[in-house]
Structures are given as C-alpha cells and as structure tokens.
C-alpha cells in the first residue's frame, strides 16, 4: 500500500498558481464532488478541485502531485455507478467537464476529435447533424465521453456495434508524472506494438488522464424500427434470445425488461407506453428490439421475419414502433430505468454482471430466487443481445447497515455463480471502488498481479485514483 501526503497550504498555493481561477478549495467545493450515482459505496470530499481548462493545467497539477505523493482522482459528469470518481484517499479531483469542445470533424476519415468533457448526448446530436453516427449508446446520455472511455461503456447498441473501445482511434493522455503523450492513430488497423490506448480504455482513470479523444464514426442509418415484444414472463422472453440471434437478423439493440421496471419508469415519466395486457393475457416481461438500415422496405422485411420467429417462440404479440415520437417515447422509457428506480427507492445497489447468452435465463431466475432468499427486492433489465444484465437490489424498509450486509451476502453468491457459468464481474459499469473484491475473487491472484504490474509502470507512486480496480489496500 502506498502512503500519501496531505496538501499543505504551500502546495495548495502552488496548485492555484498552476491553473489560476480554475481551482476550488475548502467551502467552495460542492458536495457533488464527494460521490457519483451510487453513494452506497461511500462518499469522500476532495481537498482541492481543478476544473481543468486544458491539458497543460492537468500536466502541471500532476507534476506537483506526483512529486509530493498527493492522490489525484479524475472526474467527468459523476454519473458512474461503482464509486469510480470518488476520491477515497482525499487529495485532488480533476474535473474534465469544462473541457467540452468538439474540436474537429474529419469526415473523409470518418472521425471526430473531441475534448474528454463533451457529453455523450451532445456528441451524438452533433454527429447526426452531419449525417454521421457515434454508435456507442450507454443509457446515461449526460455522461462525458471521457468517462465512457474510462469505463469502456457499452449501452443499447453494443449488440450490433460493439462498445466504446471499438470507436476510440487515438487519444492524448497526461501521465501521472505530468508527461503528455498520444496513443493510437487515425487508422483502421494496427499491429504496431502493445496497444497502449486499449490499456487506458476501461482503466477507470488509474493509468492516465485522457485530455483528447479521436473517435470513429459511421454514416448514420437512414431509418430505425423498434419492436415491443410482450411475453407472459421473463423466462419466456429470454429463452427466445438464442433463437433470435441464430436467425442473423442483425438487431441494433436487443433489450429485456420486466413489467415492474416498465411500470416504475412510466410512473417516473408520467406516460404509459408499453402494453400491459394483450389478447386477454397479462404481460410479465418484454423484449425491446431495434433494427436500423438504409431502406425502409428491407427493414420492414427484417421486422416481419423477426416477428414470425418471436410469435412462434411464445411472444403474446409484436408491436411496431416506427414513428419518431413513438420511438422517442419508447426509448425514453427504457433509458429512464435507473432514474425511475432511484426515485422510488431509498437504498439501492447494482450488479452489472455479464454472462454467456445461453446462461441469461437461468442466471436471472437464480438472481431473483437468491434475492428473495437474501431478503432483497430485485429489479432487473439489461442487454439480452450481449448477456449484460443489470440486477438492482432495492429496499425502502431496511436500515443501511442491514441492507449493505444483505447485499454483500447476495453479491458473494451471485458473482460466484456468474464466474462459474463463464461470466465476468462487470459488462460496462466498471469496477471502481464497489466491485474490487469481486474482481479479485473472479480473476485470481495471477491476473490481479499482472494488472498491478501495469499500474506500477504507469503510476509508480500509485497516486492516480487510488482504491480502485486492482488497488491493493
């Protein structure tokens, strides 16, 4: 374990001088800097915040902090779900949200270069205005793209287009010693040594601080169609997925959700979108599927083939969503699940496990049954197309201490089961502070030591985001 120094008044003055007007200290530091979206993993306020304006300020900060062994934690919009941006050892938080410029489009090379604090929503909209699409589509649209890269965020379109990792061509990074370097290039393939950019992607701010990103874009599909597919229960819905995948229909998104979470989301948004009873049958679960393409007739033909398959496999009906407002309403309902759960729940935690597709149905049944046995309310949804499940543990009645105890017990059982069936601890939210224990148990000592070795090469003083991912406390 590393030892850190505290910030002296002299050091704070040095930091202020390194970024005049952009440094917050003491009472000026808002409570928001002490947590992300999952405060259950603990909160901690930093001693100093840098609202960074450019790479040079960050570099100057890192030189001072590295020389004095001051812990530094990078923060985007604070929308993470594993406590990744919480400065658990205090020290400095470097916030990137002011570095929010889209710097340059290079449409001949299908790329855009941005600062890390650009919000996902703003990038997506700006690309669409140019007829291009940035395919990664995590549910939290107000996250920064830098944060998405740091966790290798996935999202709804990952089943067709892959995750954030697949769209990072190059990046500029400030290393813990303050050096500024670049990884990757605006090319479509490389065999040029170790992929250092791929080490940074998903490293959750533990290896370096991203200060610029060049991202791959694709021509925007001209048309999208979604299908709402109601089922009697979740097991019937999920058991359709392998057959659906085998039919090679190339869905852009393939999501599952239970009735309860739809009801929560519709209450939250004040709008009823999904059918609850059809053909005399109560709906217990849904698949939500999207196809995209350039030609409406071709898309409808795919939707029709999909519908035949889904109805044969036990769907109650298949509803078509192809009008702009209905598409917005449908996907707003899907995108508001977390906010809806938060609005109705006093205490919550989440498991973002990813399992092989054929294991989804069995694993979800296991998760629900185990939740009941552990005395927890379980709400689940996720990406049926890639096996990434979001299983929420909720309580409005328990004391926090009891809730945490029950969730710990639940996670021990659940992550063990996930690993035994070939899964991994996190599909897209990362490890942060909350899942270090389960990552260690699932990967084993050899792999954790390899990770720590890499960490040591980048950050020998272990000042960058301590307490996260593979940190040994």
């Amino acid at each position, binding site marked *: 374990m590393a030892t850190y120094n505290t910030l002296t008044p002299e050091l704070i003055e040095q930091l202020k001088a390194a970024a005049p007007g952009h440094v917050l200290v003491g*009472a000026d530091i*808002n*409570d928001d800097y002490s947590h992300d979206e999952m405060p259950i993993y603990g909160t901690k306020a930093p001693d100093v915040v840098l609202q960074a304006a450019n790479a040079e300020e960050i570099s100057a900060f890192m030189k001072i902090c590295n020389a004095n062994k001051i812990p530094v934690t990078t923060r985007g919009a604070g929308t993470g779900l594993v406590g990744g941006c919480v400065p658990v050892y205090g020290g400095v938080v470097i916030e990137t949200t002011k570095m929010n410029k889209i710097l340059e489009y290079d449409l001949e090379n299908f790329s855009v270069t941005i600062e890390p604090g650009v919000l996902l929503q703003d990038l997506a909209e700006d690309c669409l205005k140019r007829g291009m699409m940035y395919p990664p589509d995590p549910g939290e649209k107000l996250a920064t793209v830098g944060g998405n890269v740091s966790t290798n965020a996935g999202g709804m379109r990952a089943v067709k287009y892959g995750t954030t990792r697949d769209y990072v061509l190059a990046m500029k990074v400030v290393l813990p010693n303050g050096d500024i370097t670049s990884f990757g290039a605006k090319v479509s393939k490389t065999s040029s040594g170790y992929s250092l950019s791929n080490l940074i992607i998903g490293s959750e701010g533990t290896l370096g601080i991203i200060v610029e990103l060049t991202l791959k874009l694709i021509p925007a599909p001209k048309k999208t169609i979604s*299908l*709402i597919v109601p089922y009697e229960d979740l097991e019937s819905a999920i058991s359709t997925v392998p057959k659906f995948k085998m039919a090679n229909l190339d869905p852009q998104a393939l999501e599952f959700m239970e009735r309860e979470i739809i009801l929560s989301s519709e209450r939250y948004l004040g*709008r*009823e*979108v999904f*059918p609850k009873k059809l053909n005399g049958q109560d709906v217990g679960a849904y698949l939500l599927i999207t196809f995209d393409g350039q030609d409406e007739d071709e898309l*409808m033909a795919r*939707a*029709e083939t999909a*519908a035949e398959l889904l*109805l044969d496999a036990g769907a109650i*009906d*298949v*509803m*078509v*969503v*192809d*009008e*702009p*407002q*209905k598409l*917005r*309403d449908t996907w707003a309902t899907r995108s508001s699940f977390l906010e809806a759960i938060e609005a109705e729940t006093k205490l919550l935690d989440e498991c973002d496990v990813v399992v092989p597709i054929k294991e989804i149905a069995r694993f979800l049944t296991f998760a629900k049954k185990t939740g009941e046995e552990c005395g927890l309310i379980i709400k689940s949804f996720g990406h049926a197309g890639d096996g990434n499940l979001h299983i929420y543990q909720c309580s409005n009645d328990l004391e926090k201490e009891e809730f945490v105890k029950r969730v710990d017990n639940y996670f021990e059982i659940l992550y063990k089961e996930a690993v035994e069936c070939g899964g991994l601890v996190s599909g897209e939210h990362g490890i942060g502070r909350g899942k270090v224990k389960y990552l260690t148990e699932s990967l084993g000592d050899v792999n954790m030591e390899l990770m720590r070795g890499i960490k040591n090469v980048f950050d020998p003083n272990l000042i960058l985001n301590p307490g996260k991912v593979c940190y040994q406390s």
Partner: protein
Amino acid sequence: MEILIFVKQVPDDGIEVHLDPAAGTPDTAKIDKIANAFDTYALELAARYVEANGGNVTVAAIGPDGTDSMLKNLIAVGAKKAYLFKDPSFEQGDEASTANRLAQLVKKCEAENGAPYDLILCGKESTDEISGQVGARLAEELSLPFVSSVIEITPDGDKLIAKQETDEGYIKFETAMPAVYTIAKPGYDPRYPNIKAKMAARKAVIPTFSAADAGVSEAPCYVECVSYTEPPKREAGLKIQEKEVADTVAKAMEILIKDKVL
C-alpha cells in the same frame, strides 16, 4: 357510425425548426413528416368509439407525394379506409381556403365510401401552423353543429354527447348528427400497431384524387403570409448552486424578489 377524419401531414414536432436563410421560410426538408399529433388523437378516439359501438373510420388527407405512407400508418392503427387528395392547386392557401376545399372533399369521400358520414373530426390544431381555425371553418362551410377541443364522445340515441375540455374543467354538449368536432388530447395515447396490422396496411392501395377527380373548384383565400421571423435566442440562465438546497432556494428567492418577479 361512419366517421371521417381529416389528417394533416406535418414536420416531426420533436425537431427544432429554423428558417432557411435564403428562402426566409421554415426549413423542413430534412425533417421527417408525420401525422399531426391531434389528428392521431382523433383517430384513436374514433377507433375506440367504433370498437365499442360499431361503425367505420375513414381518414383523408390533402398532401404531396409521401402522404400515402402516413395514411397507411393510420390504417394500421384503426382506420378502415383512406383517401389522398393531391394537386398543385392544393399547395397554396389559407385556413379559409383549406376549410372550403375540405368541405368540397367530404362529398367525394362519401361517394367513395358509399355512405354519408355521421361525424367529421379534425385535430384541434396542427403542430406546424397552430392556427386552430380549420375545424371550425369546416363546420361553418358545411352548416353543421360544431364542438371544439373534444376529448370523449358517447352515443345518445340519434344524438352524440361531446365532452369538451376547458381551462376550468369540462363541458358536455349534445349535438345532432352529422356534426364536426375538433379533438384535444384525451387521457390516453394513440395505440401502437401490431405487426399483422402494420404489414397489412403497408400493402393497402390508397385511392388518390386530383382536384379535378374530386370535383373541387377554386377556393377563396383571404390571408397571405408576408414573412417569417425566428424568435430571439434565449439568453443563458443564471446558475445558482449553494452547498445546501435551502440556501440555493433562498438565493433564488432573493433574486426573484429583487427583479420584482415575485
């Protein structure tokens, strides 16, 4: 009961519209065209009515190429028949001329339908022009009873009870048939089509008529749009964020009182 609904195709109202700097008119070329939201509420209300009480729903639209796709979408969610009226002479006009043309088109629709309509519905306004005049003017042209902003219709012998939404609550009107109503947002949303209805609707052939086919004579126009102006851009707001919520509220109150808002 035979119900006719006039539907307008409008630019997707979820997209912000700006003026084309060269032409000085709204630039909607790249915006998806959809059925006016209030017209879709009218269709859902009518579809629910005939499902409960029997009858048929016809939708009709004046519009350019592409309007037939919108009408097919409406067949998938409750309309039994659809007619499209397409003619260069229909592209110009004001609310008076539109209502006059629609009044003339009712006869053509009835001839094609093989039965007269007991009720004619329009959305209470369109989401692009938002004048809210056409339904009332249509009733005047046809000399029929008219109720605006209706959200519920119930049968009462050979009459209809129309529940009108007002700022204060509701007013119930009884009218003879035929009648013209404009429809506001009921307490439900238009349905989603299922795949079977959608695919069947895509194969539908929409009868299309020119002004001459429909026997529409020139319609008088009284108002000419002189120019469009974009609203001024809103200035950036003031961000108030104190450590405690109560302090934030207090500071906001202080500013509102100082600026005499409160």
